């Protein structure tokens, strides 16, 4: 289990670390946000990740060659209540001590509806799951903004183990929302 998780983590990290081209741009954290909304007995509760970093390769002329990697510090997840924040770092949830980072690595934007889709790998708690992230691209003053929300199944990542597996108490579906801003190419 331990070794498998580690392997998955390395595999997920490898392409980004090795292949990310030099023209990658860093995500401007001050203008970006990553959050997760879960449902507790029907009540939507949103938590925000305060610390994350990312790199994006994006040329509007060649969306198929776009690449992105985002690393999120799970211990920075906050619901606005210290007691809850401490709880979600525990082994039954994010297990922040063993798996400090959740990551997404994706490549190749393809048009979908009015927006885009990016296939990639989402790794949380050492478990890698293939996902297709829907997103919209917008130009803002001096920045390109990638925005979207991705429904995931928390149990696929072992988020909320033991007595917390009860989806009647805590729904399996969690909505991950992101807004990533990178400086617009100065052409």
């Amino acid at each position, binding site marked *: 289990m331990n070794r498998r998780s580690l392997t998955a983590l390395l595999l997920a990290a490898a392409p980004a670390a090795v292949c990310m081209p030099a023209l990658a741009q860093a995500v401007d954290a001050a203008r970006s946000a990553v959050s997760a909304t879960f449902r*507790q007995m*029907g009540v939507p*509760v949103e938590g925000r990740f305060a610390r994350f970093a990312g790199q994006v390769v994006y040329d509007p002329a060649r969306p198929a060659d776009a690449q992105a990697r985002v690393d999120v510090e799970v211990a920075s997840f906050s619901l*606005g*209540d210290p007691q809850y924040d401490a709880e979600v770092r525990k082994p039954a949830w994010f297990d922040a001590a063993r798996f400090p980072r959740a990551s997404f690595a994706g490549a190749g934007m393809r048009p979908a509806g009015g927006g885009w889709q990016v296939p990639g790998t989402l790794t949380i708690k050492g478990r890698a799951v293939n996902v297709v992230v829907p997103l919209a691209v917008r130009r803002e003053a001096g920045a390109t903004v990638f925005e979207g929300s991705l429904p995931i199944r928390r149990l696929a990542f072992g988020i909320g183990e033991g007595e917390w597996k009860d989806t009647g108490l805590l729904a399996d579906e969690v909505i991950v929302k992101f807004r990533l801003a990178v400086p617009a190419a100065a052409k």
Partner: protein
Amino acid sequence: MSAMGRISPAVAPPGGYGGTAKALHWLVAALVLAGIAMGLTMVSLPGITPTKLRLFNWHKWIGVTVFALALLRLAWRLAHPAPPLPPSVPLWQRRAAALSHAALYVLLFALPLSGYFYSLAAGFPVVYLGLVPLPEFIGPDPALKQPLVVLHHVFAWTMIALLALHVGAALKHRWVDRDGVFERMLPRRRRPPAAEDARERTREGMPR
């Protein structure tokens, strides 16, 4: 008392509350007691556990139900005044009863409302029975959280104190005064003609 003439015997037989008033009273009583029991239990549980989260949600649903029933009760009460107290009840007790009943009514609204706004300020909107999202009058607000929870606790302990007084006074009417005041809120088991029921109650209430 002049109030006597305004009461329709079919709804409130002389000396007693009507069936609707009684049903609302006991339903609200049961819910308030359950809400208080859950509230005291959940805040005493350490950490975050599934049981605690369930209790929190049930507690909120009970509060919402109490609020709705309190609205009904208030409307009903305004349309159907309470039966008059027997002449044997001294003036200070009449005043104390009126005052404490008014305070209980106020708390039936204030206690759920303060909890509702505390929940909103804490970032947990209330979804009734896990199905119906209720209005979010305010968003998450860390600055309001603390004052609202203090207010909720003050209201809760005031409610507990007033309930002790309420139950104590009711039992005094039953066991010490024996004036029939306690019996007017008891559910009727049978449905005898109103007059017979009232006579029976009077006999029971005043053994001398």
